[in-house]
């Protein structure tokens, strides 16, 4: 999430509210007004406006696809966290603490992926708005490597635990 890379030279903003006012609300309680309310929240509102002023509007399908990809990565992160919790609860090692060696890296990997998926979503959104190619993500490699490493570690720990009996 490098804020310094916000650029607007690729094309004029097509936002109707370039003067800085929130976009026209449809009616009180309508989805449009809820969105406008969300934008008034201090956290992220400024970044949201800057992102909207970057480049030009996208084909909606690209926005949807980018959002779904983020959500898929986020679910993967949650699944890793859940796997870590399950490992902590259900793995039975004779040596106390061995299960932490499996559980904690899974949870940490999940947290890293959650953070990285947001960063990748924002980078991709910006790149597409600027009509630039979307960069490949390092996340699949980290996920694969992490899972292989943790599985290997689990195998070694199982052997150590057996020998320590």
């Amino acid at each position, binding site marked *: 999430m490098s804020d310094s890379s916000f650029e607007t030279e690729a094309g004029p903003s097509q936002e109707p509210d370039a003067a800085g006012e929130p976009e026209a609300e*449809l009616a009180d309680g309508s*989805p*449009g007004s*809820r*969105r406008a309310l*969300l*934008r008034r*929240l201090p*956290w*992220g*509102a400024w*970044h*949201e406006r800057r*992102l*909207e002023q970057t480049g030009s*509007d*996208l*084909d*909606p*399908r690209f*926005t*949807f*696809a*980018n*959002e*779904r990809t*983020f*959500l*898929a990565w*986020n*679910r993967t*992160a*949650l*699944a890793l*966290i*859940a796997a*870590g*919790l*399950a490992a*902590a*609860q259900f793995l039975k090692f004779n040596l106390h603490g061995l299960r*932490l060696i499996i*559980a*904690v890296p899974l*949870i*940490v990997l*999940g*947290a890293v992926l*959650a*953070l990285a*998926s*947001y960063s990748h*979503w*924002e980078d991709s*959104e910006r790149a597409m708005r600027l009509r630039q190619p979307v960069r490949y993500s390092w996340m699949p490699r980290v996920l694969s490597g992490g899972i292989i490493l943790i599985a290997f570690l689990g195998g070694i720990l199982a052997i150590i635990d057996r020998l320590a009996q």
Partner: protein
Amino acid sequence: MSTRGPGASIGATGTHESGHRHPTLAPDRTALAWTRSALNIAGSGILIARAAFTADLDALGVASAIAIALVALLTWRHGQTIYADRGLEGALAHHQLVALRWLTAATLLIGVVAIVVTVAI
């Protein structure tokens, strides 16, 4: 949306031959993705609460269960809201920067609570 449907032809840029934006079934898939995310969050909440109760951290278990259930509900609700919003005729697909940030923050918080509970078991 009147322009949606399998019978309508779509150009390469998602524009219907009538000139209207034609988002096909992408909003439906996206709404389903939000629902799946909400279910995933709820599942994580159940696991965290169970682990907290196992570790005799009852207060943390109750608090995290309530908080995570709320996050799951909000996530599902947000998916439904933007689905309705995007279904409006002529509506553009606004990105969800703020919502995605909150979701990321919630996931990170779930991770932190998970580590606390895991160490405490």
